[in-house]
C-alpha cells in the first residue's frame, strides 16, 4: 500500500515537473509569437493553427541550423525530439486568427488571388490555404513575414527546406509576391 502510493506520488511529481518545464518553453515561444500563438509583431510569424508536422519540421531545421535564424537558433539548441513533438502539438491546436489591421487594398488583393490560382498554391496549401502535414498554413499569416519568406525562397536564401518552393516561385516578380502576401494575410 505504502509502496503503491509512493509510486503514484513519484509519477505525479514527474508529470508536474515535465508539465511545468514544458510550460516554461511554451511561454518562451509566446514571448515573440504571441500569447495565443498569433503574432502581434508583423515580422514574426503566427504559429497558432499551423499543421503539427510543419511545426515539428521547422523546429528540427532551426535546431540543425539548416534553416538559419539568429533568433531561433539559441531557443531550440539541443532540444530533443520528444519536446519538438510536444511543442508542435500544443501550437497546432491553438486557433489561428488574422492579425492584419487596416483596410485591404482591393486591387492588390485581387491580383494576389489571381496569381495564387495561376501558381497553384492551393494544391499543396489547400484551397482555403489552411495547410496540411508538412505544408504551412498561409491564411491569416503576417503579411510582412510572408513577403520576406517568399522572396527568400525565390532568391535561394531559404535553403534546406523542400526546394519545391524555390521552383514554385521561380521568376515571380517582387510586385506579385507583394500581392500574394497581401491576399493571403487577409484570408480567414
Amino acid at each position: 500500500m505504502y509502496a503503491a502510493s509512493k509510486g503514484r506520488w513519484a509519477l505525479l511529481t514527474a508529470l508536474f515537473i515535465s508539465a511545468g518545464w514544458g510550460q516554461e518553453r511554451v511561454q518562451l515561444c509566446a514571448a515573440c509569437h504571441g500569447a495565443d500563438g498569433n503574432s502581434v509583431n508583423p515580422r514574426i510569424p503566427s504559429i497558432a493553427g499551423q499543421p503539427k508536422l510543419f511545426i515539428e519540421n521547422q523546429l528540427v531545421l532551426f535546431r540543425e541550423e539548416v534553416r538559419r535564424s539568429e533568433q531561433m537558433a539559441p531557443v531550440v539548441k539541443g532540444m530533443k525530439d520528444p519536446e519538438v513533438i510536444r511543442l508542435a502539438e500544443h501550437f497546432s491546436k491553438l486557433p489561428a486568427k488574422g492579425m492584419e489591421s487596416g483596410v485591404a487594398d482591393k486591387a492588390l488583393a485581387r491580383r494576389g488571388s489571381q496569381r495564387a490560382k495561376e501558381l497553384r498554391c492551393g494544391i499543396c496549401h489547400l484551397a482555403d490555404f489552411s495547410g496540411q502535414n508538412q505544408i504551412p498554413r498561409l491564411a491569416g499569416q503576417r503579411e510582412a513575414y510572408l513577403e520576406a519568406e517568399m522572396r527568400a525562397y525565390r532568391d535561394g536564401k531559404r535553403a534546406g527546406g523542400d526546394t519545391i518552393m524555390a521552383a514554385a516561385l521561380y521568376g515571380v516578380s517582387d510586385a506579385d509576391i507583394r500581392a500574394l502576401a497581401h491576399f493571403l494575410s487577409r484570408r480567414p
Partner: protein
Amino acid sequence: MGDSKLAPHAGKMTETPAGEIPVSKLKVPAGFKVELWASGLPGGRAMALSGDGKKVYLGTRVIGRVYEVTDAGDKRTVRVVVDKLTQPAGVAFKDGALWVFAIDKVLKFDGIAGNPNAQPQDLTAKFDLPKEQHHNWKYIAFGPDNKLYVPFGAPCNICEPPTNEYAQIRRYNADGSGKEVIATGVRNSVGFDWHPKTKELWFTDHGRDWMGDDGPQDELNRVTKPGLNFGFPYCHADGKVDADIKKKDACKGVTRPVALMGPHAAAMGVKFYTGKMFPAEYQNTMFIARKGSWNRTKPMGFDVVNVRPSEDGKTAKLSRFLTGFQEGGEGYKFWGRPAYVAQMPDGALLVSDEQVGAIYRISYQKPKAAAKKQ
C-alpha cells in the same frame, strides 16, 4: 487538376523508435527473411559501404546530415559525420575515402572509416555545380572506369532548363577534373549501377508530374555509349509527347527506356546482385527501390522490385520482391518508403527506408526440403 489535393508526402525528421517500426508487416518471397538492421537515422536514404563493409554511410535531404552506421555484429551504432549541409544526399566510398555531395557543396573525408575525427577537404570549386536547387540533390557512385558519376536534375517539374547544365548525367575524375556529360534529356535520376558483365550504366529516371495518373512512367535506362539523349522535356518514357513543352518531332533521336517502372512510382536506388547468398537465378539481376507515388490518385510503388534484364539487355521484366510498406486498397496508407538498396559482403541486401529512418536486412536460407534433395 485545379481541384487536386495531391501534394508531396511529408518526410519525417524526428527519430522513429525501433519499437514503432512495424517490420513484421514486410513481405519477401519464400526462403527470404527481412529484419530491422538499424534505426535512428531520420531522413537516411542513399547508402555507401566502406571497403570492408563494416560501415555504412547514409546521405539525407532536408535534415542536412550524413550518418555513419557501424556494424558490431549483433548490433549497430549510429553517429553523425557531418551536418548543417543543404541536402547532402550523395555519398560514395572509395580507397578509404568518403565523398559527400550536397546541392551546393562537395566534401571528401580521407580515412574516415578508421578515424572519426577526419576533417573534410572542400572540393566544391572543382565540380562546377550549377546554382538552381530543385532536383539537384544527388545520387553519386564510382563506375568500373573509376570515374565519379553525378546527375544534375531539371530545376522544375517540366521546363526547358535555363542553361545547358541541367537534366543530364556527368562523370568526373575523382578530383573533379575531366568533366564529361555522358547522358542528356534526363529529368531527375537518383539511382544507377553498372551491369557486372557488360559494364554498361543502368539508371532510373523520374517522369514528370501533373500529366495524369497513368503517365508518364518512370524509366529504367541503359547507357550503351556516351552522348545519348533520353528525351526530357519533350518526349517521355512511353513515347508520350509532353503536354506543355512542345517541339516538332519531339521523340526523334530519343533513346527509349529498357523498362517502364510505373507512373509516378519514384524509382530510386538500383543494385545489380552479385552475391553468393541468394539463389543463382538472382545473379546479375537488379533490385530497384520504388519509394512510392504522390502525384497519382491511387498509390503506385512503395516496394522493392526485382528486375531481370533480357540476354541482349534491350528489355527487362519486373516482379515485386519486398512489399508491405503500403496497406492494401486504393488510398494512401503507407508507413515506410524504401529508397535505396546495397549489397553486403556476405550477399545479404540492405534496404534503406527514408520515411522512418531505418535500414532493413534481407537474407536467404535454402529451405530444408530443397537442401535434402541435393
